[in-house]
């Protein structure tokens, strides 16, 4: 795609003609430039500088460029100009069509001339709603900050480092819950990533055709089950399993390891980790399967042509190719685990504990908000819980943003999807 001709060529081609059509650029600089060029001489465009040169270059480039720029005004300038005849424009439509982007993006070429009131209103309305997304994000941050303001001013950064949570004397600190959230989520991630990768490789590469569809649907079904149902199952089934066979055996044989020390309650960090694993596996799997399928077949065929086995192809070409996207999927899973509330609340047992034992009973940020919010009286108590909510929001948003950037960079989903 050539970048368009220079100003010099315009002077030569159209000396004496008005190079800019009447329905030209509407921006102030464009209007100024077009007025200068029209009324005085094309060379005055040099005086105005870059904006005008862009205007004139776009005008002159029509018929040569296959893909139109994103400005609606440029589309107008591609229309017929009865004054000037360009010898080069006769063969442009076939080329233009050949290189147009598919779908709705091409639509913009044709739709922007003669904008009626209805067009402008509709466009304005849709832009308003799109702006609403930005506004909603800001409103979220502002609302949480305002509601948490009493504790922000009272405790400052000490809120993050204090492990004290005492509503009676109004002393609050988030350290216990930060630990609970991070410990459970990271451990769940450690368990979930190998499982998800195995399932993703299975679904994308290894499964026979007939199994792929139903298996993918079943994994998506895992994500569809509400978290409170997982919690209910967790209370009555998982904690029972975790308590007697699992924790009992681990405590009896490996109780000297700090990881497995302490009495076996059943509910606690281990149960929360297991439930979180079950819940984040579908997230990581779905994105990873999609990414693995997007790896170009030439890569695989190249490896196979060199004599590699299927598994070697997967580990040495497919996975490294999709590596940044898969890391993004993993971070997205972490973001999901951090924010997971109900299932964790119902199996984590609700206590205060910072330490390595998996059998201990503690709380995560989300579970303490869920449990204590309805009983929170006074001003500092709800504000402390809301500050926990603000922390959770910021943490989860940061993780999600990082993850999306990684996944988009790999799959280039930003413009077209």
């Amino acid at each position: 795609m050539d970048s368009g001709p220079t100003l010099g060529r315009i002077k030569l081609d159209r000396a004496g003609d008005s190079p800019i059509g009447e329905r030209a650029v509407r921006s102030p600089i464009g209007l100024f430039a077009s007025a200068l060029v029209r009324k005085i001489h094309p060379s005055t465009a040099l005086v105005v500088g870059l904006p005008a040169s862009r205007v004139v270059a776009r005008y002159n480039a029509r018929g040569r460029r296959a893909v139109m720029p994103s400005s609606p005004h440029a589309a107008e300038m591609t229309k017929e100009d009865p004054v000037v005849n360009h010898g080069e424009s006769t063969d442009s439509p076939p080329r233009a069509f050949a290189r147009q982007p598919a779908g709705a993006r091409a639509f913009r070429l044709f739709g922007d001339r003669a904008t009626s009131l209805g067009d402008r209103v509709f466009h304005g309305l849709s832009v308003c709603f799109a702006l609403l997304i930005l506004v909603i994000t800001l409103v979220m941050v502002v609302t949480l900050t305002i509601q948490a303001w009493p504790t922000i001013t009272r405790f400052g950064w000490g809120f993050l480092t204090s492990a004290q949570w005492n509503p009676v004397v109004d002393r609050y600190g988030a350290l216990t819950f930060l630990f609970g959230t991070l410990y459970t989520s990271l451990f769940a991630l450690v368990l979930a990533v190998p499982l998800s990768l195995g399932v993703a490789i299975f679904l994308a590469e290894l499964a026979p055709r007939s199994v792929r569809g139903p298996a993918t649907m079943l994994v998506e079904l895992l994500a569809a089950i509400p978290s409170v149902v997982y919690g209910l199952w967790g209370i009555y089934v998982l904690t029972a399993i975790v308590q007697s066979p699992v924790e009992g055996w681990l405590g009896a044989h490996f109780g000297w390891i700090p990881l497995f020390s302490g009495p076996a309650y059943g509910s606690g960090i281990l149960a929360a980790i297991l439930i979180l694993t079950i819940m984040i596996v579908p997230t990581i799997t779905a994105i990873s399967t999609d990414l693995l399928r997007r790896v170009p077949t030439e890569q695989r065929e190249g490896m196979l042509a060199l004599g590699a086995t299927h598994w070697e192809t997967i580990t040495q070409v497919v996975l490294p190719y999709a590596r940044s996207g898969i890391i993004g999927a993993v971070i997205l899973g972490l973001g999901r685990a951090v924010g997971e509330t109900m299932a964790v609340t119902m199996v984590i047992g609700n206590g205060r504990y910072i330490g390595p034992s998996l059998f201990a009973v503690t709380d995560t940020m989300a579970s303490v908000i869920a449990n204590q919010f309805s009983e929170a009286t006074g001003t500092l108590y709800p504000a402390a819980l809301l500050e926990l909510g603000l922390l959770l929001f910021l943490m989860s948003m940061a993780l999600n943003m990082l993850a999306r950037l990684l996944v988009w960079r790999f799959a280039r989903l930003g413009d077209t999807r």
Partner: protein
Amino acid sequence: MTNTIMRALCALCCLIVLAPLAAVLFYVVSQGASSLTPSLLTRLPDPTAAHGGGLLNAITGTLVLLLLACLVGVSIGLMTGIYLAEYGRGRFAWLVRFLTDVLAGLPSIVAGLVAYGLIVVVTGNFSALSGGVALGLLMFPIVTRTIEGVLLLVPSDVREAGLALGVRRWRVIVSVVLPMAASGIATAIILGIARVAGETAPLLFTAFGSPGTPNSLLQPVSALPLAIFVDSQAPDQQSRALAWAGALVLVALVLLLNLTARLLAARFGGQRSRG
């Protein structure tokens, strides 16, 4: 050799991952079916009665909350989806798309806290309205991205044909593109509903739960996930039976919605390839 081992390991991973699904479904069906009677769905909870009452308040509350969530989520989602698909190009659209994707991962409890700060604090009491807004906040990213994808699938010749006939652009979108994408839009709405139908955390301090059926938008209202949560914490057997029965109803609802969405999506894909 490694090939076979690894193939078996991956298949094993798949089985390990699907085992909890089977376990959860099995327990929900077995425990829930034994306590699910038709009267459960038509009676209000009543701890003093012999059978412990029913789930009518939860079911009607869920319906009201889902309706409100649709109002909020679908209106924002539809217009933003139309903007991103039809007009969206450049830095602003990229930012909107990025924020929508990021907000799709919003923790549900944070959405509840935002609705609490926005509505409950201002109006002074828990209400169905705040619960609906919280659910709408969780719903709109999915609706937006799905509708954008669906509208991009509509072939551009249809739009060009409309414009060639002299129809205004907004009219082309509203009268030509949207009806063509109707089943896809319905899929998007159903997917959004399926996402929020099972959410409990945002409702804990917005809708808050109530023992009666909803009679006003500004009063607290119960919901099926809320009822399951509260009943599961209760010590008596009847409440626990109610919790399992509620879980069965909820899982059936969510699976039905997902299945409908899948069928609609398949039909939309079929229509598009034919048309």
